[in-house]
């Protein structure tokens, strides 16, 4: 098999599989809508129309996809190194708060500088929040999956405290004062609140691709993710690399929150995220961690979300149907059906293989 063949096959699998999963999920949805006594064709028309047809639909979709894409990139960088950053949601909250804090306390800065400062602090805070789980994992082998997940709640309650007490704007709502105009991201469309964050996440995706594929650090990250022991033998400091990957991941997580809040809300609102960090995880999985694929998958996700609102409005199908379909897509993309009898081409994987790679990461730091 030539190398080109290989590459072509990989790309085909990378696109084909998610598409197959999406098709499968949509057909299951068809049956569900039918059983619920609604018209599936009408519902899907509304769903797709509401997501991708017409200017306002597309703009709504893009607005919804911006934080998801950024979160997806955060997950992807850590995952390239074999680390699970389940804490994007928390990093996003803290980053958003940090950005807003800079936005409403510092006065009289020129616009671009103010935004940069806000986002800079958000990135630092996000990275700092990812630092403890990273170090705990590398030094003592504490599962970063669990610690990052638990710290999400700490972050969420902490920002909730900040916005309910010390930084609460007078009034009934749990929100901070609005940020100064100079800290707002430039608005591209007043109706949908589409903002330049869209271009920022595209830039992030390109930078992430460049970082992972074209830089020494990116090479080390990918090598550590593929095989820590080999990387170690070839002189890569896997510990340092893994911590750096988590720091970058956390920084992007913080930026995701900053972009959403500086672009759309212009103030910190209690519990503003409907789970962008988790959506990011799903999107990253759908795209197999490929940054450019995350752009596509993120837009698809945003489309499902904004299309679902239209569908609920136009027909009587509740928008939560889409959440169920998203879950089905995730399940089918994550599964490996090669063990099934109809697909018996590859030899069956030995049991426990799903964990074996992770175990290697955990133990290699000490086995040498």
């Amino acid at each position, binding site marked *: 098999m030539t190398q080109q063949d290989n590459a072509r096959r990989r790309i085909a699998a990378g696109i084909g599989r998610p598409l197959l999963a999406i098709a499968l999920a949509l057909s299951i949805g068809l049956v*569900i809508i039918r059983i*619920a006594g609604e018209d599936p064709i009408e519902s899907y028309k509304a769903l797709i129309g509401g997501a991708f047809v017409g200017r306002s639909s597309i703009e709504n979709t893009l607005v919804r996809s911006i934080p998801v894409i950024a979160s997806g990139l955060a997950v992807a960088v850590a995952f390239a190194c074999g680390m*699970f950053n*389940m804490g994007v949601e928390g990093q996003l909250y803290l980053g958003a708060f940090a950005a807003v804090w800079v936005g409403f306390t510092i006065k009289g800065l020129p616009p671009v500088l103010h935004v940069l400062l806000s986002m800079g602090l958000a990135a630092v805070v996000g990275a700092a929040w990812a630092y*403890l789980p990273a170090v*705990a994992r590398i030094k*003592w*082998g*504490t*599962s970063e*999956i*669990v*610690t990052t*997940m*638990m*710290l999400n*709640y*700490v972050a969420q*309650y*902490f920002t*909730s*405290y900040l916005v*309910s*007490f010390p930084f609460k704007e007078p009034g009934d709502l749990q929100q901070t004062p609005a940020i100064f105009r100079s800290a707002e991201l430039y608005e591209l469309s007043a109706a949908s609140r589409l903002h330049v964050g869209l271009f920022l996440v595209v830039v992030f995706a390109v930078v992430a691709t460049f970082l992972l594929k074209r830089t020494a650090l990116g090479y080390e990250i990918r090598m550590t993710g593929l095989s820590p022991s080999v990387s170690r033998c070839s002189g890569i400091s896997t510990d340092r690399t893994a911590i750096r990957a988590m720091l970058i991941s956390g920084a992007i997580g913080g930026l995701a929150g900053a972009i959403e809040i500086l672009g759309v809300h212009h103030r910190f609102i209690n519990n503003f995220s409907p789970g962008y960090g*988790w959506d990011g*995880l*799903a999107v990253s*999985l759908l795209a197999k961690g490929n940054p450019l694929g995350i752009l596509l998958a993120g837009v698809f996700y945003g489309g499902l979300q904004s299309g679902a609102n239209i569908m609920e409005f136009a027909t*009587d*199908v*509740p928008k*939560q*149907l*889409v*959440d*169920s*379909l*998203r*879950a*089905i897509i*995730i*399940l089918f993309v*994550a*599964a*490996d*059906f090669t*063990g*099934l009898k109809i697909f018996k081409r590859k030899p069956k*994987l030995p*049991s*426990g*293989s*799903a*964990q074996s790679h992770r175990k290697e990461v955990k133990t290699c730091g*000490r086995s040498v």
Partner: protein
Amino acid sequence: MAGAFNLSLVVAAIRLTTPILLAALGGLFTQQANVLNIALEGMMLSGAFAAVAISYFTHSWVLAILASMFVGLIMAWILGAFVVRFKALNVIAGMAVNLFASGFTAFLLRTFWVNKSEMTQGLVGIPDVSIPGLSNVPVLGELLSGYSLLVYVSILLIFIAQFVLYKTRLGLRIRAVGEAPQAAASLGVNPDRIRFISILISGVLCGLAGAHLSLGALCMFTENMTAGRGFMAMAVIFFGDAVPYKVAIGAFLFGLAEAISMRLQSVGLPSHFIIMIPYVFTVVSLIVVSINKMKAQVSKPSES
């Protein structure tokens, strides 16, 4: 201020402990088999919905409880199929189960019951149990009697879980697979099968936890009513190192923190730090546990 911390606080804490405890008792089986199960939340939510739906149609709380366990089992079966059979990463598959449960229960709720009051009217809840002879004793009566049935079941289940894990063949196998799957396999135990079974057990108990939430503590179903209790249960499992009685203590701490924070909220004080404590404690104890494990490994002669 001191008046807020009285007997009724403990009673409230016990009430809030039960759903977390039930889910955690289920999840500790998967934890012992070394399967990270983040789907507790979703299985619990499905159980809660099933209980309410069956109670609405049959007016029987017994059938409702059975249905909640059955639906929990089905969700666990799906999770097990994808994790064990199709080698999906358990974190991802678990997340998908959570998402599915949250989406699909809300979908069903909105499709079949247009308004919520219509649904709550036909519901038969799980009865409270007053212990004869105890319910009239001043302090003990209030402390021990009058809870919903599943509160007592959950306490009983602590001992059953302890027994199953440490005194039965299945428990031994689950622990063996968790500790050394290859060694277990070499003795003729199929690790995948044991992992699957442990996931199923967690599903049944999470379903039960859901039933308590929707028909025991309250008598209604609302969207995402588990509100992160499945993740609290996960924290509790790590806190208690997946040992049933330690897990029970952890669950009570979470329940107590929740009860205290509800009190504080009702008088307008910040409750955020109280409710945060269990999570922080979990992270800290996780780190301490892994440091201790590392020290133990270093001091032992190398096995390989």
